[in-house]
């Protein structure tokens, strides 16, 4: 099975440590991945802003780059959701349909693999499942649909020794990032973010974990502005044995 790694544009440029951790975690579980250098972005930023036409060049590049692989793994629920659900705007060639089906989010993919080495992570963990992973990919049960969230991220966290997932007042409230929403409506976006952080703090979270670095980028920006750090980590970093 040939596996390709898709690293979202902002992770490539701003959070290379998350991409490297992804690579290491996959390697530790015996999966050899290729990172095709022709990749750039899935096209979500433009389409989210109402410019699907401007997203097509990126989306077509994505299809060309990844069509030859059996599986395309990405450490981002949001980008995977975009490829799976919004590539319907492209003509549905067999290549397009293939990449739509073959693109998987990292934590879901990890659950199909043998367990990795045991990891100690003695922290109270605040879980943030990004909305596109939650309600777009149905990676967990949203609070509107049921009381028990479950999901890939929590399943992986349960394998850590010493990690305690904190209960929140609002388990899956949106963090307020929302792609271009963060800059279209900065006041509301930041308000949502600080409310989200307050919920985690109230319940004693020592580290904030997500499978989506975009939510974490926004929350981290607010945490640092507040000057009372609550470290954020991508799940790949934790599974790679890193500590906050």
């Amino acid at each position, binding site marked *: 099975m040939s596996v390709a790694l898709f*690293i979202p*544009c902002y*992770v*490539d*440029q*701003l*959070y*290379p*440590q998350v*991409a*490297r951790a992804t690579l290491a975690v996959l390697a530790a579980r015996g999966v050899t991945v290729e*990172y095709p*250098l*022709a990749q*750039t*972005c899935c096209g979500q*930023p*433009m389409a*989210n*802003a*109402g*410019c*699907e*036409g*401007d*997203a097509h*060049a*990126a989306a077509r*590049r994505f299809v060309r780059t990844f069509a030859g692989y059996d599986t395309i793994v990405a450490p981002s629920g949001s980008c995977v959701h975009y490829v799976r659900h919004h590539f319907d705007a492209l003509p549905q060639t067999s290549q397009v349909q293939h990449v739509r089906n073959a693109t998987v989010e990292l934590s879901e993919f990890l659950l199909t693999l043998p367990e990795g080495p045991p990891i100690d992570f003695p922290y109270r963990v605040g879980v943030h499942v990004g*909305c596109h992973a939650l*309600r*777009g990919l149905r990676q967990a049960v*949203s*609070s*509107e*649909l049921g009381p028990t969230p479950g999901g890939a991220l929590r399943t992986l966290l349960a394998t850590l020794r010493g990690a305690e997932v904190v209960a929140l007042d*609002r388990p*899956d*409230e*949106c963090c*307020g990032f*929302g*792609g271009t*929403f963060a*800059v*279209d*409506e900065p*006041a*509301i*976006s*930041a*308000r*949502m973010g600080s*409310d989200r952080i307050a919920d985690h703090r109230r319940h004693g979270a020592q580290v904030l974990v997500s499978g989506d670095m975009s939510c974490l*980028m926004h929350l*981290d*920006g*607010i945490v*640092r*502005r507040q000057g009372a750090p609550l470290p954020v980590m991508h799940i790949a970093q934790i599974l790679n044995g890193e500590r906050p």
Partner: protein
Amino acid sequence: MTTHPEAAEAFAQDAERTAWHDQALWFVRAKRDQVTRAIPEWEALRTLASGIKAHTLSRLDEYLEQFERNALANGVVVHWAADADEHNRIVLGILRDRGATRLVKSKSMLTEECHLNPYLEAHGITVVDSDLGERIVQLGREAPSHIVMPAIHKRKAEVGALFAEHFGTSPDEDDPGRLADAARGPLRSALFGADAALTGVNFGVAETGGIVVCTNEGNADLGVHLAPIHIACMGIEKLVPRVADLGVFLRLLARSATGQPITAYSSHVVTPRAPGQLHFVIVDNGRSEHLGRPEFREALACIRCGACLNTCPVYRRSGGHSYGSTIPGPIGAILSPGVDLAKHASLPFASTLCGSCGDVCPVKIDIPQQLYRWRQMVGRAGLLPAKKRLTMTLLGGVFGSRAWYEWCGRMARVALRVVPGWLARRTAWGRERELPVAPKESFREWYQRSGRG
């Protein structure tokens, strides 16, 4: 014209009000979760309701004719209004025919949409809204900010100040019970003295030609039983085919709206009460045009429960008035652009597309998908702000080319490292958040350097 971001920011500047508004609505959302979990077949009910609505909309013409036939046979006077103006003229005509000058109204978002109150008042009719929340916003000369809780944006003290002015209560009074008592007296006089009562319609039943009106205060029932004329105004999309369907929708409506098992008063009105008159005004006002848009049609299935407003993290923090349309929140953000895309171009963007609205919707309208589609329509119609439009064209070019992407990535990281704090804080991101700390090396640079690429 005020856009959503501007109005939302103005609302959110009052941090305390925002917190309280958010918590009040979240409380309702949490209640909704609790009561829906007591119904094991909740998801099956939603699916059923969604199917019934899709079916009804697929042959709306037939059901409207059936509804009219049965209503006429029941002795109801049926009127058809193509738009808001015609609706208002019809209502005024009914009142004038009987020399009626005092009207009591129970809650109807349709009449808000048609701006009926100012129209009637300009023609010498005294209009009193009998729903307490509606009465509060009427006294404050405001529009409702929520479709189920019209005055949810107002704090107790503000209601107290308003009642002091109109009902002579103490300006310091902020006890909800005593304030409600103060409103009750004048409201009773209005109800007893009314020449006509107007209600909205929650459901029209094609099979019986009857309508269902749901209230928690019983104000609609008091109004229609006391006044000799009952005028019920109904949008064409409010139909369900059979009485049996009500069992599905009434179970969904109250639970989704307020977390109650059922509204306190759900009244089925079929025939006029002798010697009174019963009028139905059936209103289109842009609905058939919306029906003609296949990719947006499902929004007409909305039963106006307000659950998407309660759950929307943006609505909760920006208040209903920020949407600048009769129906605020996520459902309004997909209905209003269909009426006037230019005016409401910012509404499809007043969302993070978190999807919570779609998951609470009792008739399973895929609201996030509709928001996404409206965004594309706004883009194609050339209604995006020029700066955003240009940025997206540039970004599209950058992401289309590997070399261009790599070069711009490097430049962006350099810029992030050298940008002075004061300048960063003037960007839309940096105003509220710290910018990311840019690494020297991108992942792809490391990948190539480490000899893997």
